[in-house]
C-alpha cells in the first residue's frame, strides 16, 4: 500500500474518533511541551551564565596579596603589600600562556561632582585592565603613558557612576573630586551589569595605579610599586590548571616563600559562577526527567487506545485481509496511526512550549532558548514513542486470522 494512502487512512481513522484522539494526544502534548520548556529554561540559564563568565573572563585568575604571617601573627589581608607591579610583569613574560597580567590597587573614597556625591570602588590600574577584564570604552580614551607614570589626576568612570553623578550630561573633561583630590574624567566604560552575586560591576572608577597609591589610599606601603592584586588572563581556557600551577611556583619563588603558607591567594573568577551553573543544570535536568515521565505515561495512553482501536476495528481488519492486505500492510496501518497521533501531539506540544516560553520571557523575565535540535529531537522522539507503544497493538492486529476477524462482532 502506498505511503500517502496509509497516511490518509490513518488521518481518517483519527478524525472518526476525534475527541478520543485529542485526549490521547494530550498526554504526548503535555509531555513534549514540558520537556521542551524545561530544556529551554535550562539552555537559557546556561546562556546567561556563559554571558556572565564571558564578561568576567572565564580565563581569568586574580592573584590577591595576603598579609604575611610574622612570628605566627598574621596581619590583615593587604596590610602588608607583598605583590608588586614587577610580579605582574614577570607573570606576563615568564608564563607563555598568559596574555595579560594587570596589576590593580583599590580603595574606597567619596566622589563628589557639583552637589552630588557617590561612593564607588576606586581602582588603580593601567591600560592592561581593559583587555584583562574585557572592558570597553563607551566614550573618551584610555590613560596616556604620561598620566600613568606621573600619577596623573585623571579617571575613567563606570556607567553607574556616570548615571549617578552626571545623569544625561557629558562627563568627559569634567572635574570630580575623589577623596578631596580633583580629577578630570577622560572616559566612560561600557556597562557590564550585575555579576552573579548581584553586585553592580559598573559602580567603579579607574585611575592610574600611582594616583591611587599616592593620592587616595594613603597607606604605608611595603614597596612603592606594591599592588593589591594582579588580574591574569590566560590565552586558552584549557590551560587554566597549568597556569595556576605556574603562577603558584613563580610567585613562591619571587616572594621567597618557603613554608606552606603563601603570602598570596589565587582565585579563579569563573569557578563560583560555574558551581551555580552546575546546580542549575542538575535542577533543570531533574525537571526534564520528571517531564519525560509524563511522555512515557502519554505513550502508555497511546498504546491503550490503539489496543481499543484494534479491537473495535477487528472486522475492518478482517475485511482488509480478505481483499488482499498482507499482515505487514495491517501492521503499517496501525503503526502509522500511532505515529501520526504522537507526531501531531509532539507538534502541538511544541507550539504550546513556544507560547509558554515566550510568555515566560515576556512576563516573568526568564531567558528561554529553544534550540533547533531540541525541536527536532522532541518531534522525532514522540514519533518514536508512537512506534514503540504502537508496535504491540499493531502486531496484534496483523496477527489476526482473517476468518476470525471477519466473524468478530
Amino acid at each position, binding site marked *: 500500500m*502506498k505511503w500517502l494512502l496509509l497516511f490518509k487512512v490513518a488521518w481518517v481513522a483519527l478524525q472518526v474518533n476525534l475527541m478520543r484522539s485529542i485526549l490521547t494526544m494530550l498526554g504526548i502534548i503535555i509531555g513534549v511541551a514540558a520537556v521542551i520548556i524545561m530544556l529551554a529554561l535550562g539552555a537559557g540559564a546556561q546562556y546567561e551564565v556563559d554571558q556572565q563568565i564571558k564578561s568576567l573572563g572565564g580565563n581569568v585568575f586574580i592573584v590577591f596579596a595576603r598579609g604575611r604571617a610574622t612570628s605566627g601573627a598574621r596581619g590583615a589581608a593587604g596590610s602588608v603589600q607583598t605583590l608588586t607591579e614587577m610580579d605582574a610583569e614577570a607573570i606576563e613574560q615568564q608564563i607563555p600562556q598568559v596574555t595579560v597580567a594587570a596589576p590593580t590597587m583599590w580603595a574606597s573614597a567619596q566622589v563628589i561632582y557639583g552637589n552630588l556625591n557617590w561612593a564607588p570602588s576606586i581602582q588603580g590600574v593601567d591600560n592592561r585592565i581593559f583587555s584583562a577584564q574585557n572592558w570597553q570604552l563607551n566614550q573618551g580614551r584610555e590613560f596616556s603613558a604620561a598620566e600613568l607614570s606621573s600619577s596623573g589626576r585623571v579617571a575613567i568612570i563606570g556607567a553607574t557612576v556616570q548615571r549617578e553623578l552626571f545623569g544625561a550630561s557629558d562627563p568627559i573633561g569634567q572635574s570630580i573630586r575623589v577623596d578631596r583630590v580633583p580629577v578630570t574624567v577622560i572616559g566612560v566604560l561600557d556597562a557590564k551589569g550585575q555579576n552573579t552575586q548581584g553586585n553592580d560591576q559598573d559602580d567603579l572608577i579607574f585611575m592610574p595605579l600611582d594616583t591611587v597609591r599616592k593620592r587616595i589610599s594613603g597607606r604605608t606601603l611595603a614597596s612603592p610599586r606594591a599592588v593589591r592584586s594582579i588580574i591574569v588572563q590566560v590565552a586558552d581556557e584549557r590551560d587554566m590548571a597549568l597556569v595556576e600551577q605556574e603562577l603558584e611556583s613563580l610567585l613562591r619563588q619571587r616572594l621567597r616563600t618557603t613554608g606552606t603558607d603563601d603570602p598570596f591567594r589565587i582565585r579563579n573568577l569563573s569557578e563560583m559562577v560555574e558551581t551555580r551553573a552546575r546546580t542549575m543544570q542538575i535542577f533543570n535536568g531533574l525537571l526534564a526527567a520528571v517531564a519525560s515521565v509524563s511522555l512515557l505515561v502519554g505513550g502508555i495512553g497511546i498504546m491503550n487506545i490503539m489496543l481499543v482501536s484494534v479491537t473495535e476495528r477487528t*472486522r475492518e481488519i478482517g475485511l482488509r485481509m*480478505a*481483499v*488482499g492486505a*498482507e499482515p*505487514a500492510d495491517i501492521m503499517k496501518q496501525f503503526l502509522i496511526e500511532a505515529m501520526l497521533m504522537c507526531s501531531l501531539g509532539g507538534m502541538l506540544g511544541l507550539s504550546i512550549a513556544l507560547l509558554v516560553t515566550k510568555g515566560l520571557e515576556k512576563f516573568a523575565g526568564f531567558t528561554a532558548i529553544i534550540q533547533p535540535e531540541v525541536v527536532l529531537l522532541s518531534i522525532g522522539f514522540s514519533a518514536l514513542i508512537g512506534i514503540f507503544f504502537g508496535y504491540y497493538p499493531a502486531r496484534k492486529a496483523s496477527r489476526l486470522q482473517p476468518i476470525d476477524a471477519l466473524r468478530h462482532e
Partner: protein
Amino acid sequence: MTQAVIESIAITKSYQMGSQNVQALAGVDVRIQAGEFIAVMGPSGSGKSTFMNMLGCLDSPSSGEIRIQGENVTHLAAAQLARIRNRYIGFVFQQFNLLPRTSALDNVMLPLLYRPDHSDAESFAIACLQQVGLAERMDHHPSQLSGGQQQRVAIARALVNQPAVLLADEPTGALDTETGLEIMQLFQQLHSEGKTIVLVTHEPEIAAFASRQLIFRDGRLQSDKAVQAASATEHLQQYRQQKMQEGLA
C-alpha cells in the same frame, strides 16, 4: 479436460471446540470450471461455509489441497495467501462489510490499494460501479445507501480486481425478497458476462438461479448436479406484479 479455476482435492478440516474434536469437512473434492455459476447449499453446520473459506484462502484445510488455476495454495504463508486473495478472489459477504465513513468509490478501490503496481485504480473502480448500476452514487457513504445498494457496492468491490472467481456468502441473507432478487439478477448478469460465481445460501429459491448445485451434509458433499437455472429477471417481474395486485386488492 480444461483446467479448473479452483479445485479442492480431498480437503478435510477439523478443529477443537473445548474437549470435542469437530470434523467440519471430511474429504471434499470439487472442481470449478471457468464461467460456472454454482450454488453451495446445506443446513447450518454442514460445512458449506468452511468449504467456502477454504476456496477463498481465508482458512487452510487440515489435509488435502486447494488449487487455484492449477497452483497449490494450501500451505502458503499469510502474506502469500493475501496476495492470492487479492488477485484471484472476489468476496461478497452477507453483511456487506463496507468501510463506514468511506465513499462508495473508495470502498470499491480498497482491493487495488493493496496492489502497489496497479495504476488507474480509480477508473477501474468507476467502471465496476457502472457495472452494478451505482456510478452516480460513488461519492455516497454506506450509511447513505440502502441495503441493496450497499451490496451492489460490495459486489463492485469484489469485481474490481478482476478475480478468477466471485465468492458470495449468503449475499441476499440481509436483504428483503425484492432486493434479494435484484441482487440475484445482477449475479446472473455477471454470469452471462462470463464471471465464475460461487454462492453459498441455505435458501433453495436463491440456489435455483445457479446452474450447478452442491449440497453439503455433515462435512461431505451429498450431491453435485447441474440444473436448469431459473431466471431472476422473470421472478422479479412476477414478484412485482404479485405485490402490485396485493396492493390493489
